[in-house]
C-alpha cells in the first residue's frame, strides 16, 4: 500500500520567507508526527497529532513554527520568517493507533534549504 508521502521533496527559500511543508499519512492512521533531521544527526521530535488536535507540540523550537491537521489526515508544517538555521530535512511519520507502542512509519522527508 501507499506509504507516507511528503511534498515538496526539496524546497529552497530565502531568509525571511514563509514556507509550507505537506504530509500525507498512511490512510487510516490517526497519529501523525513531525520530526526535523539536521545533517549527520538523528531526527528530533517537533509535534504530534492524534486526530485533528496537536497532542504534544513541545518540540517546536519557537513561535515561527506551526502545524495543522484540520481534517485529521493531511498535515501542513508552516514556518514563518525562515532563518538559515531552519535548513534541515523535515520528516513526517504516521502510526495506526492510539497506543504508544504503535510503529511510526516515516515519509521520505522534505529537504529545506534557507539561503
Amino acid at each position, binding site marked *: 500500500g501507499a506509504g507516507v508521502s511528503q511534498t515538496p521533496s526539496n524546497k529552497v527559500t530565502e531568509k525571511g520567507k514563509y514556507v509550507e511543508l505537506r504530509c500525507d499519512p498512511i490512510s487510516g492512521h490517526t497519529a501523525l*508526527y513531525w520530526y526535523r533531521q539536521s545533517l549527520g544527526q*538523528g531526527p528530533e*521530535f517537533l509535534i504530534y497529532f492524534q486526530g485533528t488536535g496537536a*497532542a*504534544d507540540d513541545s*518540540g517546536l523550537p519557537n513561535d515561527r513554527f506551526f502545524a495543522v491537521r484540520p481534517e485529521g489526515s493531511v498535515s501542513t508544517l508552516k514556518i514563518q520568517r525562515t532563518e538559515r538555521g531552519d535548513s534541515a530535512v523535515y520528516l513526517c511519520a504516521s502510526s495506526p493507533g492510539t497506543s504508544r507502542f504503535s510503529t511510526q512509519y516515516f515519509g521520505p522527508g522534505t529537504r529545506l534549504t534557507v539561503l
Partner: protein
Amino acid sequence: GENVGLHLPTLSVQEGDNSIINCAYSNSASDYFIWYKQESGKGPQFIIDIRSNMDKRQGQRVTVLLNKTVKHLSLQIAATQPGDSAVYFCAEIANDYKLSFGAGTTVTVRA
C-alpha cells in the same frame, strides 16, 4: 566484524558476516525501543522493536537485545548483505509518544 558493547559511529563489515550495532540509552523511564534503517535520501525505515518487558526479539535476519541493567540495546544482522549498507538509528520512547533517536551508526558492507 562484531563490536560488542561499544557504540561506534561507523561499522565496516564483510558481506556474509554478522553485524552487531550497539546503542546506549540514558533514560531509565524508556520502555519501548525501536531500530530504524535510513538510506541516503530516504526517511527512516522500521526494522524491529522491543518493549522493556522483553530482553530479546527476533525478526527476519535481525535480532534485538535489550539489557536494562546497563541501559544497552543492540541490533544483530545475520549474513550481512550489500543492501544492508545504511545508517542505523536506535530510538526510545518513555511514557509518551515522542521518538528520541540516538547518534546513528553508518554500516558499510564490503563485497
